[in-house]
């Protein structure tokens, strides 16, 4: 008579049979795996693009693309988040409220200095050639006259850069003026009321002040052409993980530019309404003081040692001199050429 198998061994054998099932068990396991795979591990829908913009004619094409449904046509979920100042858009990026920002190189460098959320420039929108200005009350006609003046400026943004460059022209420094931190809408109100002697501003606020008051332009970016560059910057992770979607976003943006070229009346009406100015004023702001860049211009900016690198270097130097950024040098990878001239034009 054979020796009886111990219960423990029998149980182990049973478990082994379950662990290495026969073909008859396979349907159960396949069903379980399919259920778990289909429902439990379904891929999450990618996060929508949230583009932060403030009032600036060059950024309006991103808004136009939303209003015309160009993002939707590209299969993208995009929301344009509107701010009333560059510094608010910058802060929103740092807080994680947006993942794409239309801003100047100055804000990009500040964000890279202040925040752990990495940001990369993917497209150059325009450069300011006179649109960013220092407006002064009647009687103040040049930058040298700003000594001791109450100057409204958006701190921690492009405004400080423009002010530094303007004061330099008058042989002054930041310490020579009385800086008043203020957003664009508030400085317009304060300037009208005579609470400020000068403001660092840009369209549409500058257009309204020049139209309604007897303000003098004591400095403009026409004196420093090519230094203030507006860009589209995207969270670095998105550039690496969803490059196709970033390309679609840029394609929608270029489609909006093309639409405005073909249908200027309708496009300018939509964009001017958001800026709070007339379509004519909007058109003037685009042609006088701003140089919009096409896709073919991008290569010049994004090539190694190109125009963008030069702007980044110059901006970084001035921001450090004025104490606007103080951290380690984070200029490397501040931009990516992955989307420059790669067929993003529809």
């Amino acid at each position, binding site marked *: *008579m*054979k*020796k*009886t*198998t111990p*219960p423990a061994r*029998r149980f182990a054998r*049973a478990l082994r*049979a*379950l662990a290495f*099932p026969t073909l008859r*068990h396979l349907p*159960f*396991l396949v*069903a*379980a795996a399919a*259920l*778990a795979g*289909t*429902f*439990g591990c*379904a891929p*999450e*829908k990618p996060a*929508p693009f*949230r583009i*932060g913009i403030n*009032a600036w004619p060059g950024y309006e094409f991103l808004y136009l693309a939303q209003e015309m449904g160009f993002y939707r046509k590209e299969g993208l979920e995009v*929301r344009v*988040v*509107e*701010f*009333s*100042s560059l510094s*608010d858009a910058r*802060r*929103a990026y740092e807080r994680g*409220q*947006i993942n794409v920002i239309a801003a100047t190189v100055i804000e990009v460098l500040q964000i890279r200095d202040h925040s752990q959320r990495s940001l990369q420039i993917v497209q150059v929108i325009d450069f300011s050639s006179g649109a960013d200005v220092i407006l002064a009350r009647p009687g103040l006609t040049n930058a040298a006259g700003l000594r001791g003046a109450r100057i409204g400026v958006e701190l921690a943004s492009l405004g400080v850069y423009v002010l530094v460059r303007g004061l330099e022209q008058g042989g002054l420094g930041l310490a020579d003026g009385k800086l008043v931190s*203020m*957003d*664009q*809408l*508030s*400085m*317009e*109100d*304060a300037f009208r*009321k005579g609470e400020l002697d000068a403001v660092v501003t840009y369209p549409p606020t500058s257009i309204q002040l020049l139209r309604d008051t007897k303000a003098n332009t004591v400095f403009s970016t026409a004196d420093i052409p090519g230094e203030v560059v507006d860009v589209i910057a995207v969270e670095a992770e998105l550039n690496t993980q969803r490059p196709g979607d970033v390309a679609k976003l840029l394609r929608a943006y270029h489609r909006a530019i093309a639409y405005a070229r073909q249908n200027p009346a309708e496009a300018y009406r939509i964009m001017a*309404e*958001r*800026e*709070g100015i007339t379509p004519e004023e909007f058109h003037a702001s685009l042609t006088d003081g701003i140089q919009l860049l096409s896709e073919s211009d991008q290569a010049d900016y994004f090539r190694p040692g190109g125009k963008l690198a030069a702007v980044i270097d110059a901006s970084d130097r001035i921001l450090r001199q004025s104490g606007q950024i103080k951290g380690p040098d984070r200029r490397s990878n501040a931009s990516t050429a992955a989307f420059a001239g790669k067929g993003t034009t529809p």
Partner: protein
Amino acid sequence: MNRVVVWLNRSLKRKLLLPLPLLLFGAAVAAVTVWGIHADFQKQMLERVRLHAQLVANFVNYAAESVSRPGELQRIVAAIGADDDIDLIVVVAGHPARVLASTRNAWLGKTSAELPVNDMGADLEAATQTRQSYHHYHPESAQYGLAAPLLLSQPGLANLSLTSGAVMVYLDMRPTQVAMRRLAFALSAAFLAALVILTGFGYGLIRHFILRPVARFGTLAKLRPADADGSWAEVATADELGALARTLHDSLTRTDALLHEVEDQKNTLQASEGRWRFALEGAGDGVWDWDVPTSTVFSPNATRRCSGTPRTSSAPGLRHGPAASTPRTCRG
């Protein structure tokens, strides 16, 4: 019905699978439960969204009373409205009510009536005039709208009184709904997957511990002459099936033994009969076997020759008894 019972009775496997409909019923009950949980989630979500919208409205109200410039209010509204679950915020004041601040710049300065969203202007007007809150849930766009009254400071004006106004907050419920649906879906899927896995596991255990041993009984019973004892040790476990196996084995063993005994007895009887026949043949005349119950007489050849009767004959031929035909009579 009777056929079903017969069908069931034919297979232990079928009987074991009988609870399966109950299992399916359990799944249906669970599905209803999940639906109930989902509905409750929806209710709670609406309540939380209402509280969130109220909080945003309160914050805007606080800011509206605190700021000294319209631009500051616009800035605050834009910053709050940048959160991904806030679709839009609109602040109106004055007569007629105009937009003072909004997450949509294009709406600044428009009157309530000019706002392009249905019911928004009416809600804002109503909130301003009645000083009450109004809220709507729009399932088609997954938006929740709350219009609440507020007061605005009027710095710089000769009249220091506060201005009545209203704030409209639209919350985007899609992210919350998606998260909730995913959770409910994941719960249901996990439950179903667990049900399937446990069913499979349970069937595997039943198959391993019951169906296979029972099937093995039959195999062993068929193979029994070849392997009388050895393989039975496998199925002679300590449980009820083992007891059944042992009982079956014992019964078969006893049956075997009885069969052997009967066979032996038959052989012995045949041998005994052979010897008796030999003795009869050897003894010659006058010997017969009278089977009284059947009244049959068996007689050897010699006796038959003497009496003139066949080898077997019925007793009535010998109604005078054996004495009527004796060897002596035959000799004479």
